[in-house]
């Protein structure tokens, strides 16, 4: 169930703004984070309450195997002294695995030893699920009331710079320029929400109808476009995808989710060179399981099996072994008639379901 919600969040990329994606499944800026507690490497507990009331806190969710996590930690390390002097608490929360092994702890400690801010471990991925983190790394800037001031997932080239600037403004640095955050038109947002409900009720036709309404009501709103692309492709309607993407707001050209949609279109049209280029651009801005899955599909099409496997492994790691992700990869190989390969992923998907209590 947790994995389903995670993938739902990953694939739907809820609350996408024109600058990037929302980092959390259910929480938005302006909302208070729920209480949580984590432990340090030695097992000592640390809780939400130790941050509440402080000027501000920066939470970073990370994993040793996520290359952008390392980059993000490094960037924070470079600024943390100045930030801490201005009253910012920095808390790095590792979300390595559901069950942390001795080897995991060793790898986490190796990273933590190079940092001068505290590193905690989310054993059982409780906080990861509670806050609804959908990609790694995820940074959350909280105010004294533990309300989300700003959040960011992945490490988008442009978005991350804006995020670090926002941390500075939050701490009182002079604002150079204020960029208005995009908010979707209300009618578009409501239709989009209705579409998600229809999809949950397994009614794709109704979902498509309301997503189309949402996309028409606000062409700059990327979320319904993402869902429509997937639903159209599921029914092999490449023509509809093409028409939809041609109408998308030009301001979204740099959006990683739109780049992924364009990559999917190119892939289904058989234009692998374009698909590869679009995926690379999307991944450079944001790493998502969906983008890595398509990167794998494209590599298989080019006969580059080791590259494909690496991409699929990234998708699986980023989604924490989500059965949905494993099933998607299995389906792909099954569709290609490579049943032995399909079985590898299908078995992993079922084993993950059993492991997490779904029998």
């Amino acid at each position, binding site marked *: *169930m947790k994995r*389903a919600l995670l993938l739902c969040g990953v694939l739907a990329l809820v609350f996408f703004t024109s600058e990037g994606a929302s980092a959390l499944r259910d929480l938005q800026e302006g909302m208070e984070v729920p209480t949580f507690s984590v432990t340090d490497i030695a097992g000592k507990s640390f809780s939400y309450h130790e941050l509440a009331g402080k000027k501000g806190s920066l939470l970073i969710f990370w994993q040793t195997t996520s290359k952008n996590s390392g980059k993000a930690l490094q960037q924070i390390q470079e600024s943390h002294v100045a930030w801490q002097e201005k009253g910012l608490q920095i808390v790095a929360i590792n979300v390595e695995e559901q069950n942390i092994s001795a080897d995991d702890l060793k790898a986490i400690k190796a990273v933590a030893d190079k940092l001068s801010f505290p590193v905690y471990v989310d054993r059982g991925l409780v906080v990861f699920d509670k806050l609804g983190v959908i990609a790694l790394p995820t940074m959350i800037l909280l105010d004294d009331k533990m309300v989300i001031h700003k959040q960011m997932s992945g490490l988008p080239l442009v978005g991350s710079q804006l995020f670090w600037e926002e941390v500075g403004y939050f701490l009182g640095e002079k604002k150079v320029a204020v960029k208005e955050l995009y908010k979707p038109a209300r009618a578009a947002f409501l239709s989009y929400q209705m579409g998600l409900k229809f999809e949950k009720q*397994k009614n794709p036709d109704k979902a498509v109808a309301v997503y189309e309404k949402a996309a028409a009501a606000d062409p700059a709103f990327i979320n319904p476009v993402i869902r429509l692309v997937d639903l159209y492709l599921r029914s092999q309607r490449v023509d509809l995808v093409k028409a939809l993407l041609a109408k998308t707001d030009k301001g979204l050209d740099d959006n990683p989710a739109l780049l992924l949609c364009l990559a999917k279109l190119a892939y289904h049209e058989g234009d692998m060179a374009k698909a590869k280029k679009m995926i690379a651009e999307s991944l450079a801005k944001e790493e998502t399981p969906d983008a890595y899955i398509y990167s794998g599909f494209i590599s298989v099409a080019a006969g580059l099996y080791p590259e494909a496997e690496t991409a699929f492994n990234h998708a699986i790691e980023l989604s924490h072994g989500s*059965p*949905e992700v494993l*099933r998607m990869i*299995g*389906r792909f190989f*099954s569709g290609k008639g490579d*049943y*032995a390969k*399909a*079985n590898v992923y*299908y*078995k992993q*998907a*079922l*084993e993950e*379901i*059993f*492991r997490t209590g*779904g*029998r």
Partner: protein
Amino acid sequence: MKMKVLVLVLLVSVLTSGYGFASAEDTLPFAVKTLIKQKNAAAVEGEALKYSQAGNPFLAHLAYGEAFLIKGELDQADTSFKKALELNPIGMEGKIGLARVLAARGQAPQAMQLLQEALRTSPHPERLYYELGLIRESTGDIKGATQAFEQGLERYFSKK
């Protein structure tokens, strides 16, 4: 009337628990299944002993069955799984165990038939499809295994 039903339900539950009946939901925890996957017979036997001492004969028989299966002692495994099945005739775990013993004896068609029969009544067919897929895979029916795994996943996701 409501009170009578409540008393009856309580009575049945007390009686069945007292006699060591297991429910259709009982299964070995994932940690033990991991030991089974690792073919660590001694550790699985240790878990079986713990279940036995804790008064859970159903899980004890299941775990002993698995330990015997790892060691290749198929007759004893068969006996243990049959005992587990006696304690929980509606559950699938005993049947899965027996199917795996049949498969280990080279009787894959019989093993698959047993799983197919269990599939007709089980509220949790994912595990049965998974085991069916494994047996098909072991017989070289790779495409058949894919179909079984796909059915298992389909059943799981359609419930969500």
